């Protein structure tokens, strides 16, 4: 695994908050994030920052 820079850490902390924190409301519509459909599991959005991190690393690697 690569070293995490301070800039990476800041972005990851923010993305973690956007995707994993905040109020979870019961949504009805499905919208895609970066081409991947969000799955409303139990009518709540489920998308982890880990997935975001993986995608970010894949993009960097490509």
């Amino acid at each position, binding site marked *: 695994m690569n070293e*995490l820079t301070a800039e990476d*850490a800041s972005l990851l902390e923010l993305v973690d908050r956007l995707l994993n924190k905040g109020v979870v*409301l019961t949504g009805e519509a499905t919208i895609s994030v970066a081409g991947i459909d969000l799955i409303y599991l139990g009518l709540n959005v489920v998308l982890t920052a880990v997935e975001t991190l993986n995608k970010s690393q894949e993009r960097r690697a490509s």
Partner: protein
Amino acid sequence: MTLLAHAIAAAPPAVLSPEGLRGRPLAWSEASAGLGLWSTEWAPDMKLERPDALEHHRLVERICAAQPCLPVRFGTAFASVDAARASLDKRSEVLHAALARVSGKSEVALTLLWRRRPAPVEPVAGPGPGRRYLEMRRAEESERESQQARAASLVERILAELAVERPLVWHETCTSPSVAVSLAVLVPTEEALQRKADLARIVAGFDDVTPVLNGPWPPYTFARTE
């Protein structure tokens, strides 16, 4: 009309610029319990991208600067205004309580990154591969436990020196090989920069981690209601 949610606030809504995500209309949907939802009028076939997440963050910052608000998890969408209202009405008491908890407050974030990565564990010269494997696993486990203990002690020192109530602090330790501590503090917005400076001073003495301070941000971590 699909609504892409940004934040929940108490009525009446603040006066805000009418531009939402990607310049689309920013909408206020008022529910019956004195709460409302700030959202962008969206189209279901429009896919969200990474820049949209950061723009959502800037929008939430703008809303929170104008009135106390609860950030909504990015990607939450409603098929109609009625669906959005119904969702707020269903949890109005909990949302009012959460709004009162974060009103006038901001979040300051601290990440401590390990300065030195643990040296890779060398296989011990020994009789057989099974023994070597077990010795290696034992050394790795011992290193993990030592990092966990050190991260926990860093958190304790921060909490002791910061002198804030525990419910106003959230933290996790060793969430990845690089991260020792991820911590968030809920502070009065007008004191946020001072508290950030306090944190910087406290962690400046830690010689085995690099501190990364962020914020003040909207109170994402403390808006959870479940």
